């Protein structure tokens, strides 16, 4: 269960990898999603953020979450500040439980990250409901399932890339 990679001191992640992962996540967010895909679309930016909050909280901090949230709100033409709020809270939770989560392998981390993913969506649903009235759209919580499914491949790919770049083969 316990990941050996994180038990040893390692080089800091390559800054280019961090930026590239954010750019790709943002481009995925910008794809013309429509219909049910909008509800089931994974929160790409949040998944990448959580990965880096776990691995590199000194470089990707809570402010990165806030600004990514703002970019997400603009990309989604939503109420400005909703994703920023949900990402800020997710960031704080991830950083708070970081040490415990890092004791597990990426696959074993998934069930512990699920409450954060659900919480982030819940905050967004409630913020939209409280600010603009109407009835809350609980269907959006379904998206946490795709977040959960995509978390494992995303974190594994980023982790692999990170290791390759940190320890280049001779």
């Amino acid at each position, binding site marked *: 269960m316990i990941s050996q990679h994180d038990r040893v001191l390692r080089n800091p992640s390559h800054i280019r990898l961090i930026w590239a992962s954010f750019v790709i996540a943002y481009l995925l967010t*910008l*794809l*013309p999603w429509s219909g049910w895909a909008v509800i089931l679309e994974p929160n790409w930016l949040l998944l990448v953020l959580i990965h880096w909050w776990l691995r590199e909280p000194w470089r990707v901090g*809570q402010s990165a979450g806030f600004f990514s949230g703002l970019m997400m709100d*603009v990309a989604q033409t939503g*109420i400005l500040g909703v994703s920023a709020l949900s990402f800020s809270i997710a*960031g*704080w939770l991830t950083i708070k439980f970081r040490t415990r989560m890092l004791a597990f392998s990426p696959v074993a981390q998934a069930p512990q990250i699920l409450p954060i993913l659900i919480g982030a969506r819940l905050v967004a649903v409630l913020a939209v409901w409280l600010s*603009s009235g109407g009835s809350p759209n609980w269907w959006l919580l379904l998206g946490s399932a795709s977040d959960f499914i995509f978390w494992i491949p995303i974190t594994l790919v980023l982790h692999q890339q990170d290791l390759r770049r940190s320890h280049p083969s001779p």
Partner: protein
Amino acid sequence: MSTREFFQRGPSPLVRLAFFCAFSIALVILDTRYHSVGFIRAGLNIFIYPAEQAAHLPVYLYEQSIEFFTSQSELRAHNERLNHQLIVFSERAAQSASLEKDLNELRALNDLPARTKLPSILAEVSHGGRNPFTAKLVLDRGSRAGLIEGQPVMDANGLIGQVTHVSLLSAEVTMVTEQNQQIPVRILRNGLRTLSEGDGSSGTLSLPFLPEGADIQAGDQIVTSGIDGTYPEGLPVAMVAHIERSSSRVFARVTCTPVGGIGRGHYVLVLNPPKSADSAKSTETTKSGSDHD
């Protein structure tokens, strides 16, 4: 890493959380209550625009290739349908031109200003807004093409919404079905005036202020009444789908389906609100009136 950097921690995560939460909540309030963060959105949109174009490229290429392989028979059928529509519409256009002439003559006899044709801007829908919370469209034209907030937007079938945010190269359209989006309308059959309100996620509209005994039936066409000076008069908005009357309620529950169909790659027409044309006209009338005095 120097010793100083190593020990420099800054505010605790909880303090940071409080700061970012307060900032986010302030933004939410400013956006929803005062609509005063448009400049942040417009500024960020300039950076997002190229990325958005890049993200849409694969989808665009795919659609283009699909279109390229459209069969001859399909194209023929489409062409035939368009030709048929052209005949129908040219006949209607001829009729409407003569009716317009008559109407303007009658208005002139009654000392009413003649109706002017409103200039409009053609725009393409670049995507469906990607927002799970709201029904919005994003157009490929922005303030550079002369779009301003508040302009009504229609497609070939009828009204689809209103421009709510404009940035340099794109504009957001809030759909008529969006929650709290109200439009002054009238029933085409009998001229009964009321307000329509979007139902949100269900994609329908309702007429919440019609009394129980109101003369309305399923299939009635709802058009804009032009009362607010934002939407020009007579644009088709919706069709009455379902009416629920109950003696225990003051108002009937009327559900309508919007007539404006939407999708990516479709063209829409952004109209100028009649208010601007009218206000210019009324200023002119006042001026000429004071000249006479």
